[in-house]
């Protein structure tokens, strides 16, 4: 459609692109603090499209994706998963390139072919359309496949990808054009010019995010140990973290929130560290002063966490985990929409676990006898809209129903 089929030495060039695309796909860079990975794959594919047109692009990209899918499959994947994963990747890149190229034509982009004098100025906009349509198609396909495969809401898979489309577009489009340009002018050396800075950055970012998650884990673990002033706390923190994580997943919260939900659950009471446990564990009536001290803990926890760069996102969640939709919570007396949803998730998970306690006798709080599961659920339902966010309570019920269906308790 766009160009003549490759001839002669062009085959060698295409082979070069094949390896290039494979290699870019093999070595993604994961951005610190996100689940997003960036690769040089799409710029390379776009560069190929600009130089050799649509048929050559599909001819090279589909086998390249096939190869890299097999090469990068996670160890321990069953063979069926591997097959469907590979087939999906190969098919989806073909579909993406095809739709992108169609849109490129409709947008007035001229076909590339040897001998036709096309300047970059002529195609710069249609190329942007190409990138946009290709990545939208990819987003739709991947999100649909992901949600069908995992049995999770579509939104949960699509939203984080859509959020990344704009920056992705802004990188892929100029990078692809630059790619083609450098190749045009300098040949293979031009490609090396693009790849080397990328590889250096990749290696460094990779190391950075590994180190960062190690540091983050260290800090969280230390924070958890520090809250073990009392035997019941450990189990409580872990149960709250797991439950909050499940509720957040059920609600389809943003990936970034999901990533930090467990940390938030583990550290929500960090503000109690250093507070007189004589007050925290007091049996009997608390005085107003005692209450004033106890009520400081969410704000204190937020202050502590605000000093830690790794845990920045959870600061408002921890601060808000004793707020109530009716405005009667503390420390800020926030209402409905002003309370971060993640804080509302923590509130429900925390309250539920505080009411039921763990399986062990020593997990129980000194100041009250534990409720049964049904009693606690009733309490949450009763408090929905006043004490708890009704959306969270609903998701909590769904999590509980799922657990029961799975035969758990």
């Amino acid at each position, binding site marked *: 459609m766009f160009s003549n089929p490759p001839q002669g030495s062009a085959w060698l060039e295409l082979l070069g692109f094949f390896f290039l695309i494979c290699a870019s796909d093999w070595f993604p860079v994961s951005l610190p603090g996100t689940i997003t990975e960036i690769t040089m794959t799409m710029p390379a594919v776009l560069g190929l499209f600009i130089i050799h047109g649509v048929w050559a692009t599909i001819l090279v990209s589909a086998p390249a994706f096939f190869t890299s899918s097999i090469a990068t499959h996670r160890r321990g994947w069953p063979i069926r998963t591997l097959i469907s994963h590979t087939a999906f990747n190969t098919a989806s890149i073909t579909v993406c390139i095809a739709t992108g190229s169609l849109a490129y034509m409709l947008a007035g982009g001229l076909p590339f072919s040897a001998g036709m004098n096309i300047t970059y100025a002529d195609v710069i906009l249609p190329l942007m359309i190409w990138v946009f349509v290709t990545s939208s198609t990819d987003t739709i396909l991947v999100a649909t496949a992901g949600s069908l495969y995992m049995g999770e809401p579509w939104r949960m898979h699509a939203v984080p990808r859509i959020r990344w489309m704009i920056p992705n577009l802004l990188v892929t489009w100029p990078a692809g054009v630059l790619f083609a340009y*450098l190749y045009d*002018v*300098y*040949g293979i*050396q*031009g490609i090396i*010019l*693009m790849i*080397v*800075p990328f590889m*250096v*950055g990749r290696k*460094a*970012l990779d*190391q*950075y995010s590994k*180190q*960062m998650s*190690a*540091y983050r884990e*260290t*800090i969280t*673990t*230390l*924070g958890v*140990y*520090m*809250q*073990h*002033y009392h035997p019941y706390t450990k189990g409580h923190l872990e149960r709250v973290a797991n439950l909050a994580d499940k509720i957040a997943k059920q609600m389809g919260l943003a990936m970034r929130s999901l990533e930090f939900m467990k940390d938030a659950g583990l550290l929500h009471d*960090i503000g109690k*560290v*250093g*507070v*007189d*446990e*004589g007050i925290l564990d007091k049996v009997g009536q608390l005085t107003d002063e005692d209450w004033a001290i106890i009520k400081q803990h969410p704000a204190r926890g937020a202050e*502590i966490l605000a*000093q*830690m*760069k*790794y*845990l920045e996102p959870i600061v408002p969640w921890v601060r808000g985990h004793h707020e109530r939709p009716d405005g009667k919570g503390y420390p800020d007396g926030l209402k409905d929409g002003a309370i971060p949803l993640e804080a509302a998730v923590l509130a429900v998970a925390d309250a539920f676990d505080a009411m039921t306690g763990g399986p062990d006798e020593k997990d129980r709080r000194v100041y009250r006898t534990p409720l049964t599961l049904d009693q606690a659920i009733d309490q949450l339902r009763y408090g929905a809209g006043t004490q708890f966010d009704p959306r969270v309570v609903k998701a909590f019920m769904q999590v509980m129903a799922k657990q029961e269906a799975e035969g758990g308790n």
Partner: protein
Amino acid sequence: MGTSFWLSPAFILAAAVTLGAGCYSYIYLPYQMRRSYRQSLLTLARAVETKDVGAEGHGERVASYVTEMAKEMKLPAKEIRKLEYAAFLQDIGNVRVPHAILNKRGRLTKQEFEILKSHTVVGAEMVEQITFLRDIAPVIRQHHECWDGSGYPDGLKGEEIALGARMLAVATAYDSMLSRRAYRGRKGEEQAIAELRAGSGTKWDPAIVEVFLKVLKKRHKAQGRAS
């Protein structure tokens, strides 16, 4: 192509970008990361310090003494960093010591004192379970040991005690003498130095006490110049 390629703007730009990205991610980012890691440890340590009224800032001050001592002793940078973290976290085991015992006025009963002593073991157990901090566990466990074997928890003697722990012991003692605690008043600098001298060889490693006094002298000189 030939030489023109190596002088082309595209090549120069690519080389500059590579260099910039390299410096940013290999030098600046790790530096930033280590700073915020240090800050996080310090914050956690401060949260525990609030429990022991009068101890605020103790860990940070001790850390600055210990790093200066380590520099004086020409220890490697990695060791210095470890010592600093150990100084921040030395009393982290206090989270399990009841508020009432930490802040009790007057004598502790034998049982209460045992609980207070347990903060060394508890703190060491905590960091032992964390990969990045495992190295400093012995220092935290031994920071109340004495040169003559009269300390706790294990009654170690002389060089059986980790070097870091011997250093922490001197700096901690000095800083505590200068601050007011529930159980006693504040001492003057002169008196504190005299006490260190008196305890050198019994409570503390004499060589370390020497180093510490040198560090103090240097500080005085620097202050004298500043004022």
